[in-house]
């Protein structure tokens, strides 16, 4: 069975700093997807970034980038120039490749951006 582990329950950083959220996963599959979702307080969860396992290049979306280490089964999220609006729960998630396969979420990291 696939598992997703986020070892940092809570983090705080100053505005404009860079922060890295850790995630490891376990799977025997070779084709899969990895995601970072953001859940702001009292707002809906949104997709921040996704990574296809077959792609060696790390995904980037503006200030958000990932460090995907397939052999180590590690998928960390880096937020550059952090902003107050980045305050949220961040979930790392995994999905095997194939129609109708479900997403497995980690327990989340609560990130506080301090003014």
């Amino acid at each position, binding site marked *: 069975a696939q598992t997703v582990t986020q070892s940092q329950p809570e983090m705080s950083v100053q505005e404009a700093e860079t922060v890295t959220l850790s995630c490891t996963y376990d799977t025997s599959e070779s084709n899969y997807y990895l995601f970072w979702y953001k859940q702001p307080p009292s707002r*809906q969860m949104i997709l921040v970034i*996704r990574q296809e396992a077959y792609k060696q290049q790390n995904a980037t979306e503006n200030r958000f980038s990932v460090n995907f280490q397939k052999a180590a089964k590690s998928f960390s999220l880096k937020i550059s120039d952090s902003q107050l609006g980045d305050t949220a729960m961040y979930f790392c998630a995994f*999905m*095997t490749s194939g129609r*109708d396969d479900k997403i497995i979420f980690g327990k989340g990291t609560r990130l506080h951006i301090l003014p």
Partner: protein
Amino acid sequence: EAEVAQSPRYKITEKSQAVAFWCDPISGHATLYWYRQILGQGPELLVQFQDESVVDDSQLPKDRFSAERLKGVDSTLKIQPAELGDSAMYLCASSLAGRDTDTQYFGPGTRLTVL
């Protein structure tokens, strides 16, 4: 921008009562998901629909939970009777066709408290 709608946003009930949650996915989205998110944890899939058909309900406690999507559009999740352990956030999500390349869009959720 189109969003997934859910109602009610909050529900307080007593144990042994029946509760129902409603979800309206983004127009044109064939795949609909119901997740349960216990406080401090990531979402866990309860049931997945492709149009009006159930694709995966392996994690749905069928003795008390039921879900339907009769016309393949909006959906209702019901709990009867509710138990204390059912207190959680119930999230609905939708995607275009359930392909692994399709992004899941989440609604704001219904927070259930069972007293």
